[in-house]
């Protein structure tokens, strides 16, 4: 099997061969469970791989047969519409057979069921499994149990790596068309992927947000300056240890930033013990046009969706042409997920250079040669 050539190779830059190690060395991971395990160049590799799919998705014929014959299971143990749809479209545009498994959270809360589900999916010989689960660490638990690649579509408050990647891709697209205020260099020429020195503020429910954690890890790996802003009750402990600057005051946090990333406020936190009311939240942390004016004049507005219009973000800001990248984020999401599925299944598809080094056949099938898995301490398995 080979990679199907893209319909229009003249479109944006393919991944430059000289930029990354050859073959599997460019992305030597079995799974994509978190940004925390990725090196900066591995992040950039995924972003670069996604460019071809951004181009593909803008064409009328949005289909390749790269993953033809492979089965992808989307196992969502927590409700989701957008992410599930995005992964489903990504898999189908790559030509894979995509199956969605909706599992009510309640039925899988019980211990063995989660492991049993993983074993079941494994026995069905899926070629990739995409998992969302309400508990931090659940995806890693499953990834350790199955042979095929596992992609984390969000686990509890831990990580949501594809969201951070799509956000980074969105930012990079935006930067490539912009000049910094002092007018010297385009943002993208200033360092690693253009992110070095980029000022980003992430505002909202940082405590419960996996999007915030993955974005912090990714953006700090690429050298961005990150501020996080939340009410004290929604700010995790020891944030400064993650190389970010914590703020309680949004006006101070937003001053002069290049990117404003708003987080969704969950309904159950709006009234009750975390914040007094949605109205008061908007007063302190809502992204209004007046607040946006405090950011850099070119500042980009982002939101992972779905938005609570009038709570964390005003409609006029969310729909601001040229400033709001919220719909572009959704577009980049499909491309990023295509890139992740493509890269992680190369081993199974026998893409040259992506096969595992020869192994002793007696060594068993555990860990499937993932160097990270061998190091990873495991609880009973």
């Amino acid at each position, binding site marked *: 099997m080979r990679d199907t050539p893209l319909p229009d190779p003249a479109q944006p830059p393919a991944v430059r061969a000289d930029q990354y190690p050859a073959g599997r060395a460019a992305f030597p991971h079995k799974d994509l469970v978190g940004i925390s395990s990725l090196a900066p160049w591995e992040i950039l590799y995924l972003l670069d791989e996604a460019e071809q799919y951004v181009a593909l998705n803008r064409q009328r014929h949005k289909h390749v047969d790269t993953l033809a014959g492979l089965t992808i299971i989307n196992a969502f143990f927590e409700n989701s519409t957008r992410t599930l749809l995005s992964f489903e479209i990504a898999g189908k545009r790559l030509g894979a057979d995509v199956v969605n498994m909706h599992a009510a959270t309640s039925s899988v809360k019980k211990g063995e069921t989660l492991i049993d589900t993983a074993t079941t999916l494994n026995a069905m010989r899926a070629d990739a499994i995409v998992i969302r689960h309400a508990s931090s660490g659940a995806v890693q638990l499953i990834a350790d149990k199955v042979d095929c690649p596992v992609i984390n579509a969000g*686990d509890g408050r831990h990580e949501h790596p594809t969201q951070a990647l799509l956000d980074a891709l969105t930012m990079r697209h935006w930067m490539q068309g912009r000049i910094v205020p002092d007018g010297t260099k385009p943002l993208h020429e200033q360092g690693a992927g253009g992110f070095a020195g980029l000022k980003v503020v992430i505002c909202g429910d940082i405590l419960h947000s996996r999007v915030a954690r993955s974005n912090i890890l990714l953006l700090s790996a690429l050298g961005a300056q990150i501020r996080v802003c939340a009410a004290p009750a929604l700010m995790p402990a020891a944030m400064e240890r993650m190389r970010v600057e914590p703020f309680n005051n949004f006006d101070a946090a937003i001053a002069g930033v290049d990117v404003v990333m708003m987080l969704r406020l969950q309904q159950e936190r709006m009234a009750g013990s975390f914040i007094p009311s949605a109205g008061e939240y908007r007063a302190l942390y809502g992204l209004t046009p007046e607040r946006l004016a405090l950011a850099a004049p070119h500042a980009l507005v982002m939101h992972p969706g779905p938005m609570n219009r009038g709570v964390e973000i005003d409609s006029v800001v969310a729909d601001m042409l040229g400033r709001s990248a919220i719909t572009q984020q959704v577009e980049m999401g499909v491309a990023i997920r295509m890139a992740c599925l493509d890269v992680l299944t190369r081993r199974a598809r026998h893409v040259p250079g992506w096969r595992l080094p020869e192994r002793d056949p007696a060594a068993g099938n555990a860990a499937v040669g993932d160097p990270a898995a061998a190091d990873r301490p495991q609880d009973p398995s």
Partner: protein
Amino acid sequence: MKPAPPLTITNGRLLCTDGISDAASPVVLLCQGDRIVGTSRQIDSGETSAAGHRVFDARGMVVMPGIVDLGVFEIDKPAFHFGGITRAALMPDQAPPLDYPARVRFAAAFGKPDLWVHPLAAATRGLAGTQLAEMALMKEAGARAVATGRSWIADSGVMLRVMQYAAMLDLPVITHAEDTGLAGDAVATAGEIATRLGLPAAPAEAEALAIARDLMLAAMSGVHLHIRQVTTRAGLDLVRKAKAGGTRVTCGVTPAHFMLSDIAMADFRTFARLSPPLRSEEDRQAVREALADGTIDVIASGHDPRGPEDKRLPFADAAPGMAGAETLLPLTLALVRDGLIGLPRVCALLCTNPATILGIAAGVLEKGYEADVAIVDVDRPWIVDSDRMQAQAGNTPFDRQPLQGRTAALFKGGMQVGQ
């Protein structure tokens, strides 16, 4: 039942809270029936040669009282015998809870004769923290103390009444110190690790808050308060001050909190999911200091074997607890090796103090006491292997860790048990 023939343990280094006998002049421990008759320097060869008389050669090893494990969640005889434990205080958190005299009576008889269980009576019915349980009848059924179980009693009025009632009955109250409002659904201590892993976390101060209230209520009621685990510097400072001020308070800890800090939870290792959760390295050092300066009175195993159905889960969904009986003694001996405490204090922490708190005649090798004796090879190296433990489950955060010190032989009431 036929009384056991006399037992003589020779060539031992006798360990008590006052000191340890010199290796050059080994001591002989004489037991008759289930009791210790005395110690001597000489063997009366005429007596030991009598028919049926048992002589055990300790070959220069440490001879110490059987360990009294103050606070276990499961009666797990093979693990206890491996660990040198002859008596265990059973936490009321059973299914159903030990909140009813008949259950206490059953638990008290459960391990005999080779392991004595001292049930801890639930302070409130169903451990719900609202209605007082039948403490007097449970005492009569064999309960040696009253305990709040895995949780704290949030209602201060209930807690005061529990303490007053227990004080009247002369029963100590054993508490779990974690302010429930602050702790909420937390499974980790607030800090960098919990933040990175995205785990629900509570500030370490939840412990000191709970201790401060309980100390005040204890002073009001005059009860003997024993805080089962104190794991933070702030909490230990409060206990230290209260002791100096004359409050009847003692406290304990389990080896996990002086061996590990919250970094052990990395990679969502559910074997390191404990209650209270593992603390910062700073707090771990504070626990070690408190062990050295005498603030901490007891080291217990908190033995809570949990199989994969409880542990092979996402971290927050997994049950807390570790199988600790087998590693209790060697990890305590590690404190000796680190120069923090001496061997006599090991005896106090593991045997004498817990026996005193429970008001039982044990934990001492003196005439008239029950012949609960552990022969310990304090230097013997071994490696913890969670797959091959004696415990009902191998949920230890010390898997693959090399340790030193192991029970060579164990006697309960003069009879050799285990191994």
